[in-house]
């Protein structure tokens, strides 16, 4: 049997896995992961932003598929949005205080679910170097986390502005990575990756807007999609080797999803990865550079 050239000897190319923002849809990255394992393609680093950071973390900490499925289903549930309508009304009338640390949902359950899944895991525990991106709330600059508790970095990275309260880490108030770097290919570039596998998702665009929050959410989506496109365009030109972009085709309306839909999401992630496989094999089998 022909030996897999990727297992042969030293000097394999540094491959990075980058998972961008996309809420529950980011679970599709698990399908990509499955394909990589089947092919014996080893990755040298995992980078995540926003929803993608959860899967980057799960993958690099070595969570098995079942654990990650349970984590996904427990995290993105409909009850997460409880209290939202009431809190919004009260914030708009001034009845309730709303400041830089506020969010329209109670983040207690969310933070607790993350804690249950990731516990006291730190970046040092990662088997594959892990990088998580969030955003400094005041300056808007992206912040790359690569040490300390993984929980803090995740909770910061997924803090959707207005909805989930920002998260204080040290002397910084942090929010959603998607506000500054929705698909952090730049982190992979800076850390010396040669081949970058980037899985990204565009935010769904609403057709009809019937409320202030619908309009605000819509505008946020427009901004974030534009930031995604522009940062990707720049990163693409700035990289010396190859960025393989994977855009799984998933129903844009997937916010939370149920156990029945989980296999479909993974399958779509795997499909989008297999589509690039011939090219990927060629990219990785050419003589690697020392």
């Amino acid at each position, binding site marked *: 049997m022909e030996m897999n050239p990727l297992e042969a000897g030293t000097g394999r190319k540094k491959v990075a896995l980058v998972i961008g923002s996309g809420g529950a849809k980011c679970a599709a990255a698990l399908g990509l992961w499955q394909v990589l394992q089947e092919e014996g393609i080893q990755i040298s680093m995992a980078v995540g932003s926003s929803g993608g950071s959860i899967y980057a973390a799960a993958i690099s900490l070595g969570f098995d598929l079942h654990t990650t499925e349970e984590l996904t289903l427990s995290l993105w549930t409909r009850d997460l949005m409880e209290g939202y309508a009431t809190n919004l009304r009260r*914030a708009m009338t001034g009845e309730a205080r709303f400041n*830089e640390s506020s969010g329209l949902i109670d983040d207690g359950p969310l933070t607790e679910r993350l804690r249950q899944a990731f516990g006291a895991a730190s970046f040092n525990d990662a088997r594959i170097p892990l990088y998580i991106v969030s955003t400094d709330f005041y300056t808007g600059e992206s912040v790359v986390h690569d040490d300390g508790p993984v929980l803090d970095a995740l909770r910061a990275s997924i803090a959707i502005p207005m909805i989930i309260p920002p998260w204080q880490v040290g002397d910084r108030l942090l929010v959603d990575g998607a506000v500054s770097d929705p698909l952090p290919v730049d982190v992979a570039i800076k850390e010396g990756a040669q081949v970058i596998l980037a899985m990204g998702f565009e935010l769904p665009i609403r057709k009809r807007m019937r*409320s202030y929050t619908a309009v605000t959410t819509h505008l946020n989506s*427009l901004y974030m999609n*534009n930031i995604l496109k522009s940062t990707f365009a*720049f990163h693409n030109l700035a990289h010396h080797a190859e960025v393989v972009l994977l855009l799984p085709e998933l129903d844009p309306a997937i916010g939370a999803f149920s156990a029945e839909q989980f296999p479909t999401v993974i399958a779509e992630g795997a499909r989008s990865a297999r589509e690039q496989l011939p090219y990927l094999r060629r990219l990785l089998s050419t003589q690697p550079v020392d």
Partner: protein
Amino acid sequence: MNQPQNNRLALVIGSGAVKCAAALGVWKVLNRVGIEVDLLVGCSGGSLFATTMALGYSVDECIELTQRLWNRSITRKRDTRSFLKALLPQVFKFDERFGMFDDHAMLKNLRAVFGESTFTETVVPLYLVATDFHTGEPVVLDRGTLVDALRASISVPFIWRPWRVGERLLIDGAVSNPLPVDVAIREGVELILAVGFETPAPRRIKSISRFVFHLNSVMTNNLYRANFAFHNLAHHAEIITVMPDFTQQVTLFDTYLIPYVIQQGEHAMEQQLPYLQRLLGEIHSS
């Protein structure tokens, strides 16, 4: 006039509300040394200045027009109906054309200054940038009435209602392209003078609407940088960035600071002038 006679120099004025007046300082310096601009591009607040320049007004006339266009009267009357709509969307029918301020005064000012003038009446080719409200794509406006294009380009979300031009509902160009250098690149211009402003985000957040403004401000800034980073690499020749320094905060309504802003624009341009002149000398001789 739509086709540039020469492709030597473009002036691109990005979003930045009142700070955009610094472009008049830049214009002053260029006029003084006899440097002509072949193409003008404006986004959001920058559109107002790009337009007055494109119509061939002198620097002093531009300054006077700015004072007329941009004063407190345009932001005085809060649109009570819109505000109520936001609070009780079920009672008052809400739609995407939500704006916090009544735009009648602003439109009146725009029409008083520009009347029914169209893009064809400019003496320098002009392009104004807005954003498609539904898709988020940048929209380049280069025909029709100037008032329509201006009103669309400056439709800051939640300040003024989106504006319909033709089949599209348009909002602030800053949501897609805060410093539209790419428009000048696309027109094949060699040298691009880009007057841009980073948006300092407000710090005191005491309400949800302030939170929204801050967030929009942060994202505009990030988009500005991301676009600039990309355009930078994508251009074959030179982009000279003029970024005036402001030692004090200049917010949306600080129209009294316009003289100061213009002065800062002049200083910033003076600093880049020697290099610009050398480059233009190079182009002349090639």
